[in-house]
């Protein structure tokens, strides 16, 4: 929709162009979230896509995903030798409520910064122990786990003027086996719960619960837990919530079920 209070679009070329950001000047990435709801508080937007960040960069440390990388680019990222988790990139894109046409514009960073519980890029990057790189408004850089970056339903650690620069998925994580489950109130509907399990080559097991909880929750085990343990631990999570996409008790119940399926798949 038209953002009628916005009177200026600044095309960022360097980091210094981001100094314009503030309470009434927002970051524009893909636009599918920003232009998807009224933003009457805004007077200007700063377009990040003109910074020209490479979307996906493979390094020895893993995969660096620019905040401006589109879901379309992510979904098409080619398989890398030994990257057992590769399929999760596409899987998690399919958990976006938006259509494949939205994938063509929506960005990984935008999805994270919106911090919706159903945000599938949160699911993906949290599950793969992604590390967020934040460009703080004061010019400093800060890195933190995605699980810390998202603080609640639609809240993050970002302050006005801060920008999410990238997310790095560590190499150990992308080389782990990953199982993905999503459930919604309709076959392809907005997620009620998205769970990913990760079994590292060393045998450690991490379950990441998103969608049904207000923020990503991780359960970490040195080895595959028993089904009963995992189930009990999922049921012990307290941060379930109710909205149009599912009641909290259902989210809790089906998450326990999906967790067991994941455990079985990663046997």
């Amino acid at each position, binding site marked *: 929709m038209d953002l009628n209070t916005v009177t200026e679009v600044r095309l960022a070329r360097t980091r210094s162009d981001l100094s314009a950001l503030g309470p009434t000047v927002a970051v524009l990435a893909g*636009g599918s979230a920003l232009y998807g709801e009224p933003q009457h508080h805004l007077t200007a937007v700063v377009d990040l896509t003109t910074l020209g960040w490479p979307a996906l960069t493979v390094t020895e440390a893993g995969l660096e995903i620019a905040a401006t990388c589109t879901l379309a680019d992510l979904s098409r990222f080619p398989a890398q030798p030994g990257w057992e988790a590769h399929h999760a990139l596409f899987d998690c894109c399919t958990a976006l409520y938006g259509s494949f046409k939205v994938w063509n514009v929506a960005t990984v960073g935008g999805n994270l910064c919106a911090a919706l519980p159903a945000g599938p890029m949160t699911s993906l990057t949290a599950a793969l122990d992604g590390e967020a790189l934040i460009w703080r408004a004061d010019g400093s850089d800060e890195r933190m786990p995605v699980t810390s970056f998202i603080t609640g339903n639609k809240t993050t650690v970002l302050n006005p003027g801060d920008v999410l620069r990238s997310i790095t998925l560590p190499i150990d994580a992308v080389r782990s086996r990953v199982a993905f489950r999503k459930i919604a*109130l309709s076959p392809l509907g907005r997620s009620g719960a998205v769970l990913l399990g990760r079994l590292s080559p060393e045998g450690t097991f991490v379950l990441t619960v998103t969608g049904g909880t207000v923020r990503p929750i991780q359960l970490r085990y040195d080895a595959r837990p028993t089904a009963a343990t995992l189930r009990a631990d999922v049921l012990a999570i307290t941060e379930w919530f109710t909205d149009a996409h599912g009641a909290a008790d259902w989210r809790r119940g089906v998450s326990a079920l999906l967790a067991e399926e994941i455990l079985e798949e990663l046997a």
Partner: protein
Amino acid sequence: MKFDVNGETLDVSPRAGQSLRTLLRDNEHFEVKKGCDTGDCGACSVLVDGTPIHSCVFPAHRAEGRAVTTVAGLGTPEDLHPVQQRFVNAAGFQCGFCTAGMVVTASTLTDADPADLPRLMKGNLCRCTGYRAINDALHGVSNVAQPGCAGRSGDGASGAASGAGCAGHDGSGCPAAAARAGSASTTAPAPGTVAPGTAAPGTSGEPVTGATALLAETADPSTPAGTDAPADTGRTAPTPIIRSVGTSVKAPAGARIVTGQERYTLDLAVPGLLHLVVLRSPHAHARITSIDTAAAAALDGVAAVFTHENVPQTLFSTARHQNRTEDPDDTLILDSVMRFRGQRVAVVVAESIGVAEEACRLLDVAYEVLPANFDPSLAQKPGIPLLHADKDATESRIADPTTNLVAEMHGEYGNLQKGLDEADVTVSGTWQTQRISASALETHGTVGWLDDDGRLVLRTSSQVPFLVQTEIARIFDLELDRVRVFTTRVGGGFGGKQEIQTEDLVTLAVLATGRPVQYEMTRSDELTVVPCRHPMRTRVTLGATRDGHLTAMHVELLSDTGAYGNHGPGTMFHGCAESVSLYNSPNKRVDAEAVYTNNMPSGAFRGYGLGQVIFGVESAMDDLAIALGMNPFDLRRLNAVGPNDPLVITHVEGDDLVFGGSYGLDQVLDLTQSALARGNGVAAPSGDEWKVGEGMATAMIATIPPRGHFSEASVTLGLDGRYTLSVGTAEFGNGTTTVHSQLAATALNTDPAEFVIRQSDTDVVPYDTGAFGSAGTVVAGKAVLAAATALALKLREGAASLTGIPVDEWMLEADGLRAGSRFVPLADVAASVVPAPVPQTVSIPGGRARVVATPVGITATGEHDGAQRSLAFNVHAFRVAVHTGTGEVRILQSVHGADAGFVINPEQCRGQVEGGVAQGIGTAMFEELIIGEAGEVLTSVLRNYHLPSLSDVPPTEVYFAETTDGLGPFGAKSMSESPYNPVPAALANAVRNAVGVRPHELPISRDRVWRLLNA
């Protein structure tokens, strides 16, 4: 900046923050539609450098230097893109408002894996079709009659059964194809999977059935249903009969719709247009103590500001009916009391939407917040806030404003207690339905202006232009002929546009400013303030003898009409009508009440109350079948009203409602039961956690609303030898334009494509009550047929007077009239007859229209008053699998039996059934407007209000009864609302059968099912 659109370079300056969608529309690319403006519905889809995107969430500045392709750039009506041709051939649209985006998206998927299409199409929502026809388009299936087989049965009735000329035609579009459909296929694959070598999921494996044999019968003019047809005089060389009724003639607008050329309400550029924005109430119940408009009015670009202090003080109802007293007069254009969250507080008219929004923010409003009640069960209790205590009960027609009671109905037939005492088995339960949004893809909108004579003109998205004209004239104290209301093609309605939602404000603004004004509602407006389906609580108690005969039936209804009573009485009465009279019981009682609450207003939506009550009654009947150990189909056979039984609600109904010689319940029960027994080869998912069950439900509906539905139509043979059909009813995807052209063409023995059709314009065509109550075929169609039949006689008389050959000798052909070896071209007949004076005004009870532009030529008129009404039946059945661990309900088989009488256009009628079923599935499984503690609607965008997408709607096998109605044209009955009505109950009954626990609440969502099993 410069960018290309469909090969042409645009040099424009987008506003900062503008979306590509509005930039394109500002440049008259009206083919780019707005369905949601939030990136959810896909109606605005375009290609940018070949990549499909939702243009409503695409920043306009990013189009610089790029090539944009809209649906109009893919092809033209004369030169369709292959995908556009597929949508035409498949009849892959109804209102067509979503089609531009559908086609753009589909154009990028021609190489896609068919199994992936549900995912790839999930961002394109259609509210009309139920997706089967769209899926057919995606898979290249053709469903419309092809040239050469469009009902041309010159070799007599047997033509219907021959395949001549139809080779390769694989849908139900022509009678020959329909003839193949004696038994349903059992090979439809599971949703979401594709069996090798079979049809893709949801495509039309099978055409509709039933109408074929009937077609053969009715081609004989001696049968009752054929009496409307042109008579053959029995000469040795009979005139070829071009009989398009009974065939799947394609919609006349098809090529324009698939290319984006069809114009909808707001698809026009108006110089000097002002825009209107409404400030809405932040409180569910409050009194405005002051509004300071000074800052808003002073803002540059503001043309006018309206508050409750400067608008007419005439009470009205937003609901429109033929008889305006059916709804309470409880509404003001702008009121000083806010009765629901989101009610209009004030209105700003300005040079742009942005300026008007800014001015709204500058309005300084003070409120005295009042206590609010959101619970209909508390509405009549002492101490509960009264919403309309300031109204006079008689003048406003509110049953009791001092107890929030809008309408009530209490009555008993026989003796309920005696019936319960006599029962061997009793069952009872309470069933609750939810708020549902009609969600036509085109939001409500009106653009208005003053014409050269200073008359008010409203171009509006309405199902009822004539009723809008009448009420606008009343509210603003205008002479009726100072108001012209018309619609273009309307982008969906479903009852939601049987309302005044935008026209009053536009009138206000146009009259005050003298300038053209547009008001376009947002999708959030649609989901938060436009009236929703009435939530109803139905308590049903049934008693029966051991052998299954009903002895007692008690229906208690509480309907939440919300803050205003529009459609409140009507849906309450209708809800308790055919749901109760469907069954014979010597003892019946109905206690129904509709009450005000501080919730958003409820209104009209497909089925008009019936679906809600049927959910309760048919669930209770299912419980009774279980208690009796009886098959649910048999329980209906035993108790359903028969063709010779009286219709009883709380007393024997009046003789305006009859079976019309077309009782088809027995057939649709048989068709549905046998289809379910036959199965469709779709297996339940494996695993112990999946439980399989079957369920069915029945519905009856009167074919026309009670107390009069009027239509007058005219058909003119112009001096150029062409026919013009003029009819008042609006086209919103219901397909009446096609049906009317078929009816007129059959009466005049010509091709439906030969008609120029004018419709839904109070200046141009005769009066019509409106496109609601499923009246388009059986009322307006009847008027059209009468007009065309009268014209046919006039033309034969014209030929007779021209030649001296008696009238009886003349037969109409497509190009002229023939009597033996004599042939007179149509144009000669038209020229020979001095045109009779045509009526300049048409007076109908409750309405009057000025007819200023009747075409020159020979005109005949026809009318219908809808006074006699028939009854139609629908039976739906499901086989489902229910996952006990997640609550997922998977529909394995969906079967619908429809008693539509003679089916005038099988593909369109099938589409109406499928669309109704899809909305029923949405109601049964997904859709719910959720209201928060302060009365705010939490589901204010489509991503939070789940309209069914392609992946959510399984194919439904549709079976038509072979009945012929004595009242409808060619034996047709209405079939638009009714397919919706049995669906939620059928699903509930199937779930109950699968898991042994009964749902009592809609939607039967996964979390609710899970809780039934795991709580």
